[in-house]
């Protein structure tokens, strides 16, 4: 059986064994919850509650700020304490709704749906839109927008991103082990929107148990197929996943829909299930707390808005003081200044490392070895791009396809001179794109 994959990529230490066998545990937060109004791509949501209001779990507290935007829901019952800027995982200050939980978790009523096959396409899309679903793998792109392509009849593949290629993360894995029916049903709901499309579940072969169990579950689902993929970072990158599953290639100027594909992460498809079948908006998500500094690495079902600090305490705190704490995985996650930041719809993990290997290394001269070229999944020459970036040469940077970079970090990972290649390329990309917007 030839495993499908893409060209390039790297094999970092995967660290998944630490939390892989830990079942999902419900975590009921105490005290203060923070809901940043911008936790998706697109216009920030607008608050529809005022300080002093009482809210219930599942109640909408902020409305979508436009079509490309998403509403936000309270995940606890309690009182709105403030609406003010708070620091989020990326380090930015974002206007947020702060709710003091009453610890009772009283829910508003949810309207379950007994038979989703009777729903019209518009009904499904509006349920997804009204539930505030966004790409929960990290990108945060509003899902209802993704599911409304210009030409729906051209969509041939709905790809579930079950790769979970970031090291250490196990939340998607646990959800596929413990609640695979959500994924399958969620996929069937999306497939209902695209009658000609086929559902593909792209799973890395380090999760062979899940490949086996999902294949069994899909035995009688003619429209869904499990696609085993080679374990390699960034296998779960959207363009890499499309290439591996369908052989098609897209570039930075195209959408997956241009190649007849729509890609959604496991957590997103689960949220589609929850929204359409159970009628519940996005309030919870599965979250991995892991790393060698954590007392009891775990997978939690958290209420979105819970502080990372509280999740960490629920995992027993630290064994030894961490040097670096990362929101997300080690390849693309954000290093945190402070653990007291809220979780959002897109937060999947908190990784606490007792050593920061990056700060130990010294950058030396580029020896032109080409390891970054071999590692780059986008077929770029990262060492040169970073040089153009350092010289501020925007023109050559673009000519050498610098804007195609997906910021996966494989080049920096592979570089024997320990150069922060991805960092300079990312910065340059932002500058070039900013220039373009000005024009």
């Amino acid at each position, binding site marked *: 059986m030839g495993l499908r994959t893409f060209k390039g990529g*790297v094999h970092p230490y995967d660290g998944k064994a630490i939390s892989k066998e830990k079942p999902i545990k419900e975590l009921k937060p105490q005290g203060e919850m923070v809901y940043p109004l911008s936790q998706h791509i697109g216009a920030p949501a607008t608050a529809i509650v005022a300080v002093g209001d009482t809210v219930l779990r599942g109640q909408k507290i902020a409305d979508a700020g436009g079509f490309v935007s998403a509403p936000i829901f309270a995940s606890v019952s309690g009182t709105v304490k403030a609406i003010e800027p708070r620091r989020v995982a990326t380090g930015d200050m974002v206007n947020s709704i702060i709710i003091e939980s009453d610890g009772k978790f009283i829910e508003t009523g949810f309207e379950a749906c007994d038979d989703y096959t009777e729903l019209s396409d518009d009904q499904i899309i509006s349920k997804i839109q009204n539930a505030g679903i966004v790409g929960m793998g990290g990108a945060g792109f509003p899902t209802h927008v993704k599911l409304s392509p210009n030409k729906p009849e051209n969509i041939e593949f709905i790809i579930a991103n079950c790769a979970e290629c970031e090291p250490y993360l196990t939340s998607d894995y646990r959800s596929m082990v413990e609640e695979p029916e959500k994924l399958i049903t969620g996929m069937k709901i999306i497939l209902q929107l695209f009658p000609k499309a086929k559902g593909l579940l792209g799973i890395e072969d380090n999760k062979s148990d899940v490949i086996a169990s999902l294949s069994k579950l899909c035995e009688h689902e003619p429209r869904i197929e499990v696609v085993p993929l080679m374990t390699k970072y960034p296998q779960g990158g959207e363009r890499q996943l499309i290439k591996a599953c369908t052989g098609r290639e897209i570039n930075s100027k195209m959408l997956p829909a241009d190649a007849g594909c729509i890609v959604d992460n496991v957590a997103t498809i689960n949220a589609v299930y929850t929204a359409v079948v159970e009628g519940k908006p996005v309030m919870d998500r599965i979250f991995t707390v892991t790393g060698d500094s954590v007392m009891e690495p775990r997978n939690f079902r958290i209420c979105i808005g819970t502080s990372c600090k509280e999740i960490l305490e629920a995992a027993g705190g630290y064994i030894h003081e961490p040097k670096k704490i990362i929101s997300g995985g080690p*390849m*693309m996650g954000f*290093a945190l200044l402070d653990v007291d930041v809220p979780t959002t719809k897109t937060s999947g993990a908190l990784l606490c490392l007792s050593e920061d290997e990056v700060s130990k290394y010294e950058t*030396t001269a580029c020896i032109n070895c080409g390891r970054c070229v071999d590692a780059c999944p986008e077929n770029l020459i990262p060492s040169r791009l970073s040089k153009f970036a350092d010289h501020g040469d925007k023109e050559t940077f673009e000519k050498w396809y610098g804007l195609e970079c997906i910021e996966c*970090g494989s080049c*920096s990972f*592979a570089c*024997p001179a320990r150069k922060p290649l991805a960092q300079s390329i*990312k910065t340059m990309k932002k500058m070039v794109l900013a220039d373009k917007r000005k024009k």
Partner: protein
Amino acid sequence: MSDLLKVSSSPHVRAKDDTSRIMLYVILALMPTTVFGIFNFGYRALLLVLVCIFTCVISEWLFEKAVGKKSTIGDLSAAVTGLLLALNLPFTLPVWQAVLGSIFAIVVVKMLFGGLGQNFMNPALGGRAFLVISFAATMTHFEYDGVAGATPLALLKSGEAVNTLDMLIGRTGGTIGETSAICILIGAIILILLGVIDLIIPGVYIVSFAIFVCVFGGHGFDTSYLVAHLCGGGLMLGAFFMATDYVTSPITPAGKVIFGICLGVLTGIFRIFGNSAEGVSFAIIFSNLLVPLIEKVTVPRAFGVVRERKPKEVKADE
């Protein structure tokens, strides 16, 4: 607690290979042919190896001290240059000439251009070229078993018969490290297994050179003539250890292929039509000069980017 956390841009992990480890792998891979050379030619070979390595490392250190830069001898690249230079010298070369060659390699070819990663020419070969031109007599004087004589390649050029088995094993005259094709190949396998080099440059080089020899060598497809050419002179050492020098070879995949063809053709021209029997070092040096141009025309197409503006067709039916 929060002020103790380290913050940096992702990724937060790194692969284990760093520059000095890669250089160490190269030194390790050069050991079979070095040890064979020392056994083959005696203690003087060992002396030259040690002198070259020592001089290269010290010159780099002194140069950096003099210009007030941080010492980079820890990356072991100077040691690799010294070792490679020594392997490219006849064991009879006077020590002071070896010292001069090492200083030239490090100071002129490498450090004056900005040090590791900035030189456009392989330092060891630059040093060797300097010595060949300056001290032609001692650089082309080869002895084997105490008898001065021509190298197999020189014999081949004058139309005499050579023993290809001796050439494979390395029991012939030549420079310290170039004689044993087998030992060099063992080293090459080590480099490939450790992921230091891939086969593109040496493979294309050797194949295009072999084709050139078949077409222009005047012997047609004569296996023993071909094997003698492949195992003779510096071809094997050059193909696997010097043409693959990261700094002075193209980084683009297509560029590597073009670079290999340039090497094969130039080596063929120099060996068959040139005055000297040898041609590898100058072929590599000339090709090194072409690298920036080769890279410029071989920028690979990014993933998913269609050449010739094909997306327009898609737009037409929208």
